[in-house]
């Protein structure tokens, strides 16, 4: 198969300057090498790899921050840090995990997989794709720079408001808030660019015969995600810009002393913040049926029902925001509306759970690492859903709000739902990306250590919350000591066990040098879809010969 074709070049601008030449599948163009290659690449697979590597690195950075927090919480009293630094670690941990670890991981998946799955040679806008990624590292540096500046006596550290920037605390905060506002703007631009690229690629570069109702569910999940990002990121950007003008330019949008309204900030923030949860989860929900069908050796159950559920969740996501501040003093009709609309999300979500389980029903199941993570995801994310219903109840939330119950709930959603979902996808597609299998024994060890230590970390936090322990405090009453000690031990095992994953990725990349077998095209016996018809790893221009979907 020749790659020296004008159509192939037309979608990859990095090759514009390269002379035409013929080569075989899997060979690379005479593109820049070394660091310059990664800086200038417009290839979707290169950019996908950069997103994933960046995400993994930041996952460990954000994890290290929260291990310091858990170490402080191992015993009551202040042992390791002052409350101000504790607050900074918590806020930056959340921003790093959300914006620099989970979202880039999902975008990395999208970059790698969407062109492969829809039969496109690349993303539709390759240069924007490159720009979208390279905005991320400077934004991450901006988020964390105030920590370093404080060491040299400049400023008072990173933002200490939590990731929510609530006014009036954020109006009064130090330079860490300004750095975070700037970083959020840049991260937002990156997300918008990525979203636009994904939407136009799915709409315009599908293979002939691939109608929207034949689109792989992973692409559907990402399509809804991309529209959610486009609808909500500008509102977040607007809110933090208003915060910036309140801080430095004399406005009083959120400053009650000047006639502003701090609750307005909460409305604007959570108009973004709640859809953000689905932005993190929809790509995972999209990939889950692929994994379950593959290892059950059955077709996906309820394709249309899942598509309509994604869309329904996308719509509901933007009309339920105020359940995050039921206790702020909203009028009763508003409380009732937001309670019922929040509970309504459980309906399409229940459809998804039903379809996932029905996909496995009476299948010839096998339990390789991706399937184990998928099963762990279903069980643990189910706990997130059920405890979310408890928090959606206005009366119950009056007690649980701002307690460790909330912390436990959203970690079941975002670690068990988000990160374990990302691990599912990573193990599922890793052989396709590297061309070599991973170490199955290490993968299984990673899964079991993760599941056990995750529950050891976060299950006690439900009980801490029920017993009344508030979140975001470095010190606590004596009766909470035992559960906090257990939670800290679990957190350290959880953090350390993720190193197994990193080592497994390195082993798969090194491939034969680590004695791992080559992956064939299909990789998994039951895998279905266009992406499994390309070699592992796929050729430089993923699809040069146009596939036709029957």
């Amino acid at each position: 198969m020749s790659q020296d074709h004008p159509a192939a070049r037309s979608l990859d601008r990095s090759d514009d300057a390269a002379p035409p030449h013929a080569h075989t599948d899997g060979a690379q163009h005479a593109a820049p090498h070394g660091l310059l290659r990664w800086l200038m690449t417009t290839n979707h697979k290169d950019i996908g790899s950069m997103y994933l590597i960046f995400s993994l690195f930041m996952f460990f950075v954000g994890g290290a921050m929260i291990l310091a927090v858990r170490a402080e919480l191992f015993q009551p009293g202040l042992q390791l840090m002052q409350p101000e630094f504790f607050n900074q670690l918590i806020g930056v941990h959340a921003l790093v995990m959300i914006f620099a670890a989970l979202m880039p991981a999902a975008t990395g998946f999208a970059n790698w997989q969407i062109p492969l799955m829809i039969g496109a040679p690349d993303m539709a806008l390759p240069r924007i794709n490159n720009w979208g990624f390279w905005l991320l590292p400077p934004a991450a540096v901006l988020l964390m720079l105030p920590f370093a500046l404080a060491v040299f006596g400049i400023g008072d550290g990173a933002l200490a408001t939590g990731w929510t920037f609530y006014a009036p605390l954020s109006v009064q905060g130090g330079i860490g808030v300004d750095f975070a506002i700037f970083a959020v703007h840049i991260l937002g631009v990156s997300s918008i660019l990525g979203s636009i690229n994904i939407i136009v690629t799915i709409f315009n570069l599908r293979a002939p015969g691939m109608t929207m109702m034949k689109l792989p569910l992973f692409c559907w999940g990402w399509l809804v995600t991309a529209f959610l990002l486009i609808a909500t990121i500008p509102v977040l950007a607007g809110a933090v810009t208003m915060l910036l003008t309140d801080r430095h330019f004399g406005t009083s949008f959120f400053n009650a002393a000047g006639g502003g309204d701090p609750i307005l900030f909460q409305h604007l923030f959570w108009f973004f913040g709640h859809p953000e949860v689905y932005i993190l989860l929809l790509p995972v929900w999209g990939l889950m049926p692929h994994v379950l069908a593959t290892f059950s050796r059955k077709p996906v159950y309820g394709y249309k029902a899942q598509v309509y559920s994604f869309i329904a969740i996308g719509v509901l996501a933007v009309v339920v925001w105020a359940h995050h501040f039921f206790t702020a003093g909203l009028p009763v009709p508003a409380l009732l509306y937001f309670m019922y609309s929040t509970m309504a999300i459980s309906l399409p979500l229940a459809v998804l759970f039903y379809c996932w389980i029905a996909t496995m029903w009476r299948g010839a199941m096998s339990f390789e690492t991706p399937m184990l993570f998928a099963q762990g995801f279903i069980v643990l994310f189910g706990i997130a859903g059920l405890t979310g219903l408890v928090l959606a109840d206005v009366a119950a939330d009056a007690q649980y709000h701002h307690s460790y119950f909330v912390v436990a709930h959203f970690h079941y959603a975002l670690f068990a739902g988000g990160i374990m979902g990302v691990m599912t996808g990573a193990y599922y597609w890793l052989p396709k990306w590297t061309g070599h299998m991973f170490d199955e024994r290490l993968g299984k060890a990673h899964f079991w250590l993760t599941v056990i230590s995750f529950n050891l970390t976060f299950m006690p936090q439900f009980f801490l919350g029920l017993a009344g322990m508030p979140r975001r405090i470095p010190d606590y009453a004596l009766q909470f000591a035992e559960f906090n000690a257990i939670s800290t031990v679990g957190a350290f095992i959880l953090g350390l066990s993720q190193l197994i994953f990193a080592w497994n990725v390195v082993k798969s990349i090194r491939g034969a040098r680590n004695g791992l077998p080559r992956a064939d095209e299909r990789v998994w016996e039951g895998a279905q879809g266009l992406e499994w018809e390309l070699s592992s790893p796929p050729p430089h221009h993923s699809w040069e010969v146009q596939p036709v979907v029957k």
Partner: protein
Amino acid sequence: MNSEEEAAMFAPEELARRRAASRRLAWALGAAVVALYLLGLFVKR
């Protein structure tokens, strides 16, 4: 999902048409984003 490979490569004209459509849609989405952002800035209580 099954597929069959045709002998033909991606037709350059077809790809050019799709890329042009992608650019148009990208500009429209970008304009919607900017409009939303500006709307946020002018929110009044």
